[in-house]
């Protein structure tokens, strides 16, 4: 697996660029990842990213859009505004988590 430098720190990523190690993530890296996919982080963005991080810790897998709505409390419509076109994958990328596996 490749190692790349993000925000001055070497991090392990998969062949697509998603972080592969939960503990290598920090907010500075998240900001940098967001910038690379042209997303400017606001409080609303952070709320989702923090939910995804906490949820992954307890569930062992990345929350789907559905779960971000039902458990995280951010409606799907808003997710599409904050992370246009492909919210589930973009949220996971910035949160330093694998792509969600669930179908819904």
């Amino acid at each position: 697996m490749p190692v790349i430098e993000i925000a001055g720190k070497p991090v392990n990523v998969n062949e697509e660029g998603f972080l592969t190690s939960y503990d290598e993530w920090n907010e500075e890296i998240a900001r940098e990842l967001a910038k690379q996919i042209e997303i400017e982080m606001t409080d609303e963005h952070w709320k989702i990213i923090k939910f995804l991080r906490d949820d992954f810790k307890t569930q062992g897998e990345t929350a789907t859009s559905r779960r971000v709505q039902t458990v995280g409390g951010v409606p799907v419509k808003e997710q599409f505004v904050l992370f246009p076109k492909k919210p589930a994958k973009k949220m996971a990328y910035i949160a330093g988590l694998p792509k969600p596996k669930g179908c819904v």
Partner: protein
Amino acid sequence: MTPSIVPNFGSENSDRKLAIICSKGNLDMAYPGLILANAALGEGVETMIFFTFWGFDMITKSRMNDLQFSPAGNTAMHLPGHDMHIPQSVMPVPGMTAMATHMLKKQIAALDVPEVPDFLDQIVAAGGHLWACRMSADMNNLTMKELRDDVEGIISASDFIEMTDGAQLLFI
């Protein structure tokens, strides 16, 4: 160290479109179209769903909460989690449809997959478009006021074909 790798989330202006025709009103056959529509929207694909014939029940307010599942005629039906088939001869017993519907709903809910009306709410929230079939509306004497409020219109098959020019199409 490898130079930067950024995932390819596709072009912001992708013009990929998906048209799904939902023609079935059985609970089990309502889901494939909804799951695919939801997945397509999550991938940034513009998605239009056309409800026709029995699929009309999915958007009819008085029926959308009461879709049912019957194992009758489905030879692939086996006991959940087992390879053993349920004999077709026991399918028509009274209460079988209610029991099978209840079990299917439980299995779907366990996966955190919403019920059909909720699922359509999510699809519309994600930018999906719902259209109703003119002939089905006429056959059932239904108008816009009997349908979900987010159905965009009752249109003919030709209108739907025209508006989905260039789209990939699924018939379910």
